[in-house]
């Protein structure tokens, strides 16, 4: 607590320390836990972007979207088609990434439009359907014209190349060796920072207030002068754009995409990150995304633990970790139903202190 107290009111010092920590983190992770955890860290960053995007739709505007992974898929396939031997294209990343994000945003509006009159459960079911439609399309668009290569997916996707430096290979810069996941970590971190910045600016803006107003009471929002149709579509579009952005980054990082990666379970995982962390709160959502990506991975070690204690593996760690994860979620909901870091709590406390 002493360190935190000391840092209070020293914003620049906190920022510098945070930045330093984030820059050095992959070195520490790679040295202590190995390269596989560095990849997990990269995925955690991707999921932070996804969760923040979905948070705009679900957390701010209160539109329960269960098909969010569709926009992730659109972004990923955009990258895959524009930078792989499949069509023989290899466009630079600064062309593909905005294109993918924009197309995903367009899909956000496209899928948002028919759902404007729906709320709650009904909206959830329709968006769930949309998510599945996209996945099934990707699965079947290999005939009569082969666009997506069907269930086999698209392989040999080009990695991000910045100024001739491919992030897909181990590189040596200033005598320091950076592995591919290490390089991607910095790229993803940059985009996470961008997404966080956008979310923060929007949260305390006229548009952000309009989103929250719609979540709180759509009829009152309309009567207060908000064009609910446009503002809801804007939320869908913004969320989808972030989904498309992380999709593109995912495709380049993974080097391979297939419809399998974009199933309903993914949508639900992203949603549970938001719910777990605290809907509508940027820090909560980031924490939620980190936990939901890391915990199941950490629970893989239960296999080793069983072997050490009992001499053999009784329960497959893959089964056990989902069970433990489920229990953790249930406990969470019982103990902190509003999430780990609920939004507005701090502000509410401040208000109570003042009176």
């Amino acid at each position: 607590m002493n360190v935190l107290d000391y840092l209070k009111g020293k914003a620049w010092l906190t920022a510098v320390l945070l930045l330093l920590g984030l820059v050095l983190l992959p070195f520490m992770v790679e040295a202590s836990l190995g390269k596989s955890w560095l990849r997990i860290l990269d995925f955690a960053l991707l999921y932070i972007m996804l969760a923040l995007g979905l948070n705009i739709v679900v957390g701010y505007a209160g539109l329960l979207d269960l098909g969010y992974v569709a926009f992730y898929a659109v972004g990923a396939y955009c990258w895959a088609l524009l930078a792989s031997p499949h069509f023989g294209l290899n466009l630079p990343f600064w062309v593909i990434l905005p294109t993918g994000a924009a197309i995903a945003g367009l899909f956000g509006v496209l899928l948002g439009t028919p759902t404007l009159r729906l709320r709650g459960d009904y909206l959830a079911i329709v968006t769930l359907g949309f998510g599945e439609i996209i996945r099934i399309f990707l699965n079947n668009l290999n005939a009569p014209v082969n666009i997506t290569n069907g269930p086999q997916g698209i392989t040999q996707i080009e990695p991000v190349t910045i100024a001739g430096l491919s992030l897909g290979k181990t590189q040596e810069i200033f005598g320091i060796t950076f592995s591919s996941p290490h390089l991607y970590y910095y790229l993803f971190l940059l985009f996470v920072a961008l997404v966080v910045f956008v979310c923060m600016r929007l949260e305390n803006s006229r548009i952000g207030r309009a989103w929250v107003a719609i979540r709180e009471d759509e009829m009152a929002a309309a009567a207060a002068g908000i064009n609910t149709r446009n503002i809801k579509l804007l939320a869908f579009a913004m969320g989808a754009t972030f989904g498309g952005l992380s999709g593109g980054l995912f495709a380049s990082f993974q080097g391979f995409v297939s419809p399998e990666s974009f199933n309903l379970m993914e949508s639900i995982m992203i949603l549970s990150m938001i719910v777990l962390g605290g809907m509508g709160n940027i820090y909560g959502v980031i924490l939620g995304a980190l936990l939901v990506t890391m915990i199941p991975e950490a629970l893989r070690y239960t296999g080793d633990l069983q072997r050490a204690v009992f001499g053999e593996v009784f329960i497959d760690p893959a089964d056990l970790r989902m069970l433990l994860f489920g229990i953790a979620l249930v406990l969470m909901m019982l103990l902190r139903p509003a999430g780990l870091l609920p939004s507005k709590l701090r502000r509410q406390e401040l208000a109570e202190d003042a009176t």
Partner: protein
Amino acid sequence: MSDLLRVANVSKHFGGIKALTDVSFTVRKGEIFGVIGPNGAGKTTLFNALTGLYQPDTGAIDLVGTSLYRRKPHEILKAGFARTFQNIRLFHNMTALENVMVGRHTRTTSGVLAALLHTAHNRKEERDCMAYAQQLLTRVGIGKHTHTLAKNLSYGDQRRLEIARALASEPKLLALDEPAAGMNPNEKNALRDLMVSLREEGLTLMLIEHDVKLVMGICDRLVVLDYGQKIAEGTPDVVRHDPKVIAAYLGGEVVV
């Protein structure tokens, strides 16, 4: 006094139920105009039809030359017609200040790009909006609750906050749907003073109210609805002695 709102032959049917039938009246600039009637007479339906929450089936609604007939709620608000709700509808998890700032949505312009870039215009607009909202909170008497969440306000204060949110759009006409419902005598008096002072500032008010003493005391003119039809219109004195009104409230046949 000139006419502010002209309502002509507005009807609204829900299936076979005629909620409003050919309702016509005129609200003059600067008056407090009451809408009364027994329960289920169609008062709230009338407000909803006027403010775009329901689409009227027929009729004409005209606010100083602008037709409000079948327009969207936000367009009607922008035209200068704001309202509050019978069962208070606030943004519960937003602070009092934020609630009022949302009410200024139509009088501000910053979009996504302006918010992202924090343009000078955007920053000034946010500052002005916040100052305006704070001023309104003080105006309705809850200036010290700026950062309290709407749901944590007392019942009377929630009503005031709703009025402040409606005022934030700088309306020409403000429609209050039973603002005194559930208030104690002190709160009612404060509300009454607020309405009178708003009128003095040039605002025109429409008022649905059950408290006859309050309505008769404050309204310049009234319209009386019964079973979705207008049965009387005029000053409180005229309305009070109208046999149709007495019959509607006390029951029984109209003796002509």
